[in-house]
């Protein structure tokens, strides 16, 4: 066999360099027919294995794709859990960071008798235009008080563009439907 190989491939120093490839019979003729029949059976086996595997479809509206913990969905504004005061102090750093220019903040002085936020000032207006937002998460990074974070909600379709402008109240509210979170190793 090795003699045979060196005759066929004289430029090879070592017969071990030749990797023999196993090939099925060429198409055509009796061997080809045998191959075609065998391959057909193999194909039938493959498709039947898919049946046994079962459907992989996620029945979307009823069944939702779980998201990863760091999934960047719709934004959320946060309050301090103990005092109930808003974390946002209206510093507008998120506005500066936003590449899509979709955040609008109008700050106002806190009334000491009726505080809205923990700082000196608070956001009187806090709007995010989700039609413009690119969900990059820079606002979350820019925020010095972790007042804004990206949530897990991704079902944001609406009938009007104006409905996609989320106000402070909407961003502060707890989401009605919880998006399923992907578990460890899922």
């Amino acid at each position, binding site marked *: 066999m090795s003699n045979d190989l060196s005759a066929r491939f004289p430029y090879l120093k070592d017969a071990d360099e030749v990797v023999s490839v196993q090939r099925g019979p060429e198409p055509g003729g009796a061997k080809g027919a045998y191959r075609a029949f065998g391959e057909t059976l193999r*194909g039938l086996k*493959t498709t039947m294995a*898919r*049946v046994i595997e079962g459907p*992989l*479809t996620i029945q979307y509206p009823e069944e939702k794709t779980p998201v990863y913990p760091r999934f960047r969905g719709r934004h959320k504004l946060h309050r301090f859990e103990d005092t109930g005061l808003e974390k946002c102090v209206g510093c507008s750093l998120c506005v500066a960071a936003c590449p899509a220019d979709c955040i609008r903040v109008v700050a106002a002085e806190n009334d000491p008798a009726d505080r809205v936020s923990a700082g000196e000032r608070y956001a009187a207006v806090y709007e995010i235009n989700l039609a413009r937002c690119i969900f990059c998460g820079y606002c979350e990074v820019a925020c010095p008080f972790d007042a804004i974070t990206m949530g897990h909600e991704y079902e944001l379709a609406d009938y009007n563009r104006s409905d996609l402008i989320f106000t402070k109240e909407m961003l502060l509210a707890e989401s009605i439907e919880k998006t399923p979170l992907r578990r460890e190793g899922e």
Partner: protein
Amino acid sequence: MSTIADVGYAEATWILILKSIVIFLVVFLIVPVLTVLERKLIGRFQNRYGPNRVGPVGMMQPLADILKLVGKQTFRPAAAVPLLYAIGPALVIFSGITTIAILPFGDVKDGVGFYGIDVSIGVLYFFAFGSLAFYGLLLSGWSSGSKYSFLGAMRSAAQLISYEVSMGLALLGAVMMAGSLSLVSIVEAQGEIWYVVPQFVGFLVFMVAGFAETNRAPFDLPEADAELVQGFQTEYGGTRFASFLLAEYLEMFVVSGIAAAFFLGGWMGPGPGWLDPIWMIAKILALIFIFIWVRATLPRLRYDQLMSLGWKVLLPLATLNALVTAVLVVVA
């Protein structure tokens, strides 16, 4: 009046009419189920669910499909030949329905044969009316006045010629073993052993040729949705398109029925006599499952591959099978 064909067993006319209505209804109710079944099974073969929105588990899907198609405007292209364009789909359905008449769903019970009619020339009847369907395809393809339709029609004509020969020769073995052309006698001759065992080659050739005869994947060249935009059906819409669809499933039912009668022992199966039609239908459905399975597996053949498979593989195999069977029948 001279006899055109002998009939093995015939009842009173009113029983015949009643029988034909019952068989017609049963088959017509099976066809819509087949369409969902096919789509659901193809889905399963691809890790999907298939249609599951209309009605419980999607079983009302055919109703939605049919209503949609029936609701469409009847349209005829300006270049079409009016009469032939209308006759085409009708002819295709006609050939499918007439062939159902000879499918045996059971033997004679209480004076009533569980089949449309038991003609002594059963196989010839099947081929005669089966070929008629191709007139429908040819006529509708040609009369549409469209290149794609015409190409599809030509392809189907060539395909028919190539595969009908092998199909006939494949059945010849079973015919010789049973010594009769009547489907009822052929089924009865399989009391000891189903012909799928001694006639395995014949069964294989018949099934492959059957895929081609019904224009099903991998031999759906006349339709070839990717290249010929449905071939002869291109210019059809609405109810007429639905008739082609119906005819395709009818033909699949018929070919499976013939295969079940010739090779799988027809209505025979364990259990009491009234189970016979159910056994027959179960065997037909099993064969249709194979049709769908193959459709989900194999890609469409190239045109020259279709021809070389038909003439160089199937025809010699079928001929050899017929010859060997003939010798064995004479010797044994």
